[in-house]
């Protein structure tokens, strides 16, 4: 058996492959429940992480010719990212609607994997991944808060107090 290639940091210059349109998952014309997902990434000192690549992947709605179900966005000078996508539905029950997140940055030798869930989804109570996290405060690090009719916000803390729950898969 072969062994998978080792990961190395994305470094500070990954923007050479950036296409800023990738932050809009509806750019090819997908129609549906269009939402905005925002967040801010901070480090162990509370300082914004301004050079990260944030990637999202969702299996609901399913990927199609007009919906890539995948997006990438840089964090800006304030550590913030912003995606436009379609809201995941309950199609993967018993899993609650969620979006997978990968964080790549200078200083991260491999991706940090986490998930974004949505405030006020009944399935959050029985979601098999959320249910693995006993501490309610830790669980909340994965729940995006609704900030307007069609926008949710999730802060991601790489280290320290209120550190986001990251996952090994």
């Amino acid at each position, binding site marked *: *058996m*072969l*062994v*998978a*290639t*080792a*990961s*190395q*940091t*994305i*470094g*500070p*210059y*990954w*923007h*050479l*492959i950036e296409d800023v349109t990738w932050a809009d998952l509806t750019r090819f014309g997908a129609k549906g429940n269009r939402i905005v997902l925002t967040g801010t990434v901070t*480090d*162990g000192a509370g*300082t914004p*992480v301004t*050079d990260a690549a944030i990637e999202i*992947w*969702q*299996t609901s709605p399913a*990927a199609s010719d007009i919906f*890539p*179900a*995948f997006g990438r966005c840089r964090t800006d000078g304030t550590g913030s990212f912003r995606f436009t996508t379609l809201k995941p539905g309950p199609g*993967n*029950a*018993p*899993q609650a609607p*969620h979006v*997978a997140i*990968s964080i*790549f940055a*200078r*200083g*991260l*030798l*491999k*991706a*940090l*994997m986490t*998930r974004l869930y949505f405030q006020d989804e009944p399935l959050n109570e029985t979601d*098999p*991944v959320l249910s*693995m*996290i006993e501490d309610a405060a830790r669980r909340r690090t994965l729940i995006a808060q609704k900030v307007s009719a069609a926008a949710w916000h999730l802060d991601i803390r*790489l*280290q*320290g107090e209120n*550190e*986001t*729950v*990251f*996952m*090994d*898969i």
Partner: protein
Amino acid sequence: MPTETAPFRPIEAGSQPANDTPSYGSTHLRHPTRLALRIPQTVTETTGPRFTPARFSSTPDLSMTNGKQALGERIIVRGRVADEDNRPVPHTMIEIWQANAAGRYDHPDDRHDAPVDPHFRGGGRVFSDADGWYQFVTIKPGAYPWHNHRNAWRPNHIHYSLFGTGFGQRIITQMYFPGDPLLALDPIYHSVPGQAARERLIAAFDIDITAPDWALGYRFDFILRGRNATPTEQG
């Protein structure tokens, strides 16, 4: 063809770096301190995005811009993308970025006092073919200083990003060059604990890939995580 949803196998011990790697200063405030939560792989982890050259154009020659040749040593990089069972990963996208021959990125945050090259942008992408093989032409990147420690220099390297067939296979890595004296001093290269895993990040000079009177050739293979034989139960 049905979508493959078997879970990925666990990571081989010693084959991957830890984010808590003190010799690499930028990790200090960025590595999580809590143990990662090991979750069962669901369809979210076992499937992933697909990219096609029809929509994401391929750029197999980074050494030319607008018909003008970049400065530096032209090279050909060729290799195969396969999984841990040596099954080829066909038609998968490989993103590439790198410094120019002088060790300078065409990036606003790169302040290294070395010239940018108007004919070298340093970013592109290619796709593996039906048998997992990929190839591109570029310029050998130069070494560059960074501020990790006194007199710190990154060895010559090319950055890569691959998606494979599932989000759990996603990998970003760097390819190094054989015989580089800076490898012995580089904390990023040495973040990979196992020597064999580390050395697989070094491309091999290959006379058969080398094109006579034109460019040296290097071989570099990617291995993505393999899948278990049994599918996941969970949707």
